[in-house]
C-alpha cells in the first residue's frame, strides 16, 4: 500500500495536506481511547477491590501505629527535632561553603600542573576550543566510553525489569494482573489536548534543534553530547506527552532504539578501543585537526559527541517510556 509508506506520510505531514493531521489524530484516538467503564470482567473488579482494600489497610495500620506508639508530647518533640536537624544541617553546609576557596582563586588546590598542562596544550593537541570537551572526549575518551556503557546498561536493566510484552504475563504475577486490568492511569490521562498539540508542533522542532546545536557545537562552546542528548530526550518526551505513544511508535520503536544505541556505541568503541591494546597510549591520529573554531575540526571529537548524544537521547526517552507505560 502506497498510503502506508513512511515517505508518503512524512510528505503529507510536511506539506500539511488537508486532513492529514486529523487522520493521524483519529488513528491515535482509536488506538488509545479510554476504555468503556460499562464493560468490566469480574477479574477486573476483584483486582481493583483488592488493591483498594490493601491501600486502606495500610493507611489504617499507619494511623494506628502513630497513635499507639507516640504520645502528643513525643510528637511535638519529634517535629521540633525534625526542624532542628534540618536547620543544623543547612547551617553546617552553609558554613562549609564559606570555608571553600573563592571562585577563580589562583591558590585553589585544583590549580595544579595537570590543569595547567590541559590549558596550555589542550587546544594544540586536541583541536577543541572547549577544553572540557577536549578533555572528556580526547584525553579521557576511554572513560567516557565507560560512562556511555553505564547509561546503556542502566537502560537495558530497566527494560529487563519493567518491559511488558506477550511473554511477560507467563512469568510475572504482577504483569498478569496488569494484563487482566488494563485500566491504569495512563488510560485516563487527558489525551489529544488540542492546545498542547498545537504548541508542541511549534516547540518540539525548536527543542530538537537546540539539542542538535548543543551537540554539534560541543567542541566550540559549553555543551556536548551529554547535555545536548538530554535536551533532545526532553524534546521527545514533550512529543510523547502531546501526541501519545501510538503516534510516537510510527518513528521510534524498540527496534529503532536498539539499532541507534548499538550503532552509536559500536562506532565509539571502534574509534577509541585501541587504547586496550596500546596500554592507554595515544596513537598518532591520521585525521587532521583542522582550524580551531571551525565546525569540522578537532578530529574525532565531533563524531564521538554525536554518538554520545544519540545514546543519551535514546536512554532518556527509554527511561520515560518504560517507567510510564511499560513498553517503548
Amino acid at each position, binding site marked *: 500500500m502506497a498510503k502506508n509508506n513512511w515517505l508518503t506520510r512524512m510528505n503529507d505531514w510536511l506539506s500539511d495536506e488537508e486532513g492529514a493531521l486529523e487522520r493521524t489524530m483519529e488513528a491515535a484516538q482509536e488506538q488509545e481511547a*479510554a476504555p468503556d*467503564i460499562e464493560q468490566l470482567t469480574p477479574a477486573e473488579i476483584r483486582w481493583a477491590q483488592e488493591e483498594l482494600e490493601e491501600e486502606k489497610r495500610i493507611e489504617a495500620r499507619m494511623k494506628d501505629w502513630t497513635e499507639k506508639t507516640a504520645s502528643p508530647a513525643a510528637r511535638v518533640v519529634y517535629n521540633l527535632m525534625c526542624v532542628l536537624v534540618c536547620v543544623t544541617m543547612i547551617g553546617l553546609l552553609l558554613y562549609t561553603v564559606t570555608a571553600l576557596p573563592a571562585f577563580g582563586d589562583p591558590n585553589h588546590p585544583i590549580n595544579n600542573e595537570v590543569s595547567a598542562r590541559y590549558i596550555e596544550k589542550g587546544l594544540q593537541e586536541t583541536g577543541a576550543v572547549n577544553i572540557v570537551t577536549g578533555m572528556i572526549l580526547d584525553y579521557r575518551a576511554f572513560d567516557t566510553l565507560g560512562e556511555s556503557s553505564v547509561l546503556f546498561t542502566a537502560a537495558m536493566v530497566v527494560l529487563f525489569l519493567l518491559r511488558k510484552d506477550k511473554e511477560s504475563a507467563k512469568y510475572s504475577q504482577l504483569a498478569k494482573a496488569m494484563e487482566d486490568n488494563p485500566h491504569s492511569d495512563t488510560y*485516563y490521562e*487527558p489525551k489529544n*489536548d488540542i*492546545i*498542547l498539540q498545537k*504548541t508542541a508542533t*511549534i*516547540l518540539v522542532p*525548536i527543542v530538537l534543534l537546540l539539542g542538535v546545536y548543543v551537540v554539534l557545537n560541543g567542541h566550540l562552546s559549553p555543551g556536548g553530547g551529554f547535555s545536548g542528548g538530554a535536551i533532545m530526550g526532553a524534546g521527545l518526551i514533550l512529543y510523547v506527552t502531546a501526541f501519545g505513544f501510538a503516534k510516537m511508535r510510527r518513528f521510534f520503536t524498540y527496534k529503532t532504539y536498539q539499532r541507534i544505541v548499538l550503532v552509536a556505541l559500536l562506532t565509539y568503541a571502534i574509534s577509541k578501543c585501541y587504547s586496550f591494546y596500546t596500554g592507554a597510549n595515544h596513537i598518532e591520529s591520521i585525521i587532521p585537526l583542522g582550524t580551531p573554531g571551525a565546525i569540522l575540526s578537532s578530529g574525532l571529537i565531533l563524531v564521538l559527541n554525536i554518538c554520545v548524544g544519540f545514546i543519551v537521547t535514546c536512554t532518556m526517552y527509554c527511561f520515560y517510556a518504560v517507567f510510564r507505560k511499560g513498553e517503548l
Partner: protein
Amino acid sequence: MSEWIRFALTAAFVLAGLAFCCVGVFGLFKFKYAANRMHAAAVVDTMGISLCMLGFAISAPDLFSGLKILLVIVFWWLSSPVASHLLCRLEITTDEQRGEYMTVHRGTLLQERLAEEAAAQDETGNEIETKEEQA
C-alpha cells in the same frame, strides 16, 4: 555616559520586574483557591519574567546572548499558557467542591462525563445500601 544610561534602563526594568514578581508571590498567599492563585502566578509568568529579561538583554555582554535572553521570553510566553491550561484542567477535574465557588461549563470534557457517571453509580449504590440497612 551611555554606559550609565544603559545601567539606568536595566535597573528600571529589573526593579519593575521584581515588583511584579513580589506581587505574584504575595497573591499566592493572599488567595484562597488554587484557581484564583493561578491568576497571581500568571503575573510572575508574564510581566515579571518579561520585564526582568528585557532589563538583562539591554546590558547583556554581547548581542548574541542578549538575543538568546529575549528568546527565553518568547519561549516562556508560548509555554506558560499551555502549562496553566493543563494545570487548570487538573484543578477543575479533581476539585469536587468547586461548584461552591465557581461555575464550570460541563459537557466539554468527555472524560469528566464518564467519571461523573461512575460517581453517580457510586452514589446510587451507596444510597441503596444505606436505605436497605435502615429498613
